[in-house]
């Protein structure tokens, strides 16, 4: 099992989600974060105050996947999240020691594999 953590552009979120859906990756968490990846600062002016905004809005996606899903997940994010310009973000793949599904108490591989009919149960 791995934890895939991706930092992407907010305006690419919908495309990335679509790509993940097509890759049959289900179950993920997103959060809005701010970060800096070497892109040029935006200059903003509010009356007499001029600022350089070094931290840009980004979206952090976290996905716990079984080993067979690692490559499809990463590929989907790379393909859908790229614009080719500095600031597209990063994908990290981290080892995971243990996973539990809270509802059933299932562990590890079965905990990150969607059960049949799970989606329709929403």
């Amino acid at each position, binding site marked *: 099992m791995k934890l895939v953590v991706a930092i992407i552009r907010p305006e690419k979120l919908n495309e990335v989600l679509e790509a993940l859906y097509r890759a049959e990756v289900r179950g993920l968490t997103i959060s809005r974060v*701010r970060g800096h990846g070497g892109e040029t600062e935006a200059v903003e002016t509010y009356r007499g105050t*001029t600022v350089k905004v*070094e931290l840009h809005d980004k979206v952090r996606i976290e996905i716990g996947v079984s080993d067979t899903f690692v490559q499809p997940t990463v590929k989907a994010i790379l393909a859908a999240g790229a614009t080719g310009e500095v600031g597209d973000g990063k994908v990290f793949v981290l080892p995971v020691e243990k996973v539990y599904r809270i509802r059933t108490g299932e562990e590890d591989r079965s905990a990150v594999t969607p059960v049949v009919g799970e989606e329709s149960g929403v």
Partner: protein
Amino acid sequence: MTPTPINQADTAWMLVATALVLVMTPALGFFYGGLVRAKNTLNTMMMSYVALGFVGIAWAFIGYTLAFSTGSNWLGGLDNAFFRNVGLDAKGTIPHILFAGYQATFCVITAALISGAIVERMRFGPYVAFITLWSIVVYAPIAHWVWGGGWLGKLGALDFAGGTVVHINAAAAALVVAVVLGARKDYARQAIIPQNVPFTLLGAGLLWFGWFGFNGGSALGANASAALAFSNTMFAPMGTLVVWSLLDITRTKKTTAVGAATAIVVGLVAITPAAGFVSPVSGIALGAIAAVPSYFTILWRSGTRLDDSLDVIAAHGVGGTVGALLTGVLAQKIWNGTADGALFGNPRQLGIQFVAVVATIIYSMVGTFVILKAIALVVPLRASQKEEGVGMDVTQHGEEAYSSGEGAILVQPDRG
């Protein structure tokens, strides 16, 4: 011609009415600003606010004279260019400068109305150039046709406060700009939902408040006609709101806040041409009827490739047309002293209304298209895909509506 004396009551009411109509443009900024995505809030609101500057000054310099000074059937003359000869003498029963100021507020909001069709994608500079030129080339002539002594007024077209001049005119322009610019890159690909519905409700409420000046002031005096227009402005949108809510419940089982805000605007638009011409009961009927076509136009439009983003055509075009035509049906001489409509023995009035609607649509569409193409020869109209993605607030204005200040490093001012 003996000059009429200035009437103090009329002047007092028109001073208030002018301030009321002025506040409608910021109100429109809130109405539109709530409906876009957070990254485009300031840009959208600025599209309204900037009209207060550029369009207002264009009106003072040249728009007013083209609309209201003595001229031909088609266009006013240049006697009042740069407000020359616009002083404290009576125009009607109020000071001339007050009349010109009151009419300026109409020109400003009409230009701003168009922005609803092109939010989240048009570059700001070309937008400002467009609405400024448009106010001179399109708005001023049509205002002259109907109110400035031009051919539609002589024909007997009834437009109390701007159903054709303001709303149909702005909506026809909106259609052309939306088509020329094309849809937003995310349109019909991903969900684009309102960032701040309370802003939209606030805007609709303030529009209603300001509209009392818009319609009530169009009587140009503190008189019975103003009272009729004023009360129709209150009751007609109430009718629209009730019918719209029932349509919402029938379709989705819930009444929506965005729907209520839209209904209020549609009702106000529809009663605008009729305000001082129809009885209060007719006004309520007109408001109630107007809900239906606008409601279904919005449903239909959102399934098409036409990215009239904030439904200017449905609210102002369809609402304005329904109002203008029903004015020709429901007008009553015993209420307005001018003309009866088709329901009261004068079917010809409906034909005249139809001519006014069609003439406005054609002229506005052609004029808008020519202005846009002329600007596009000099500068691109549309923001790049990347700018659209990042958002128009940062790329067009260098500001954010909702900034936490995290990671913002102060640049010390250069005192050199």
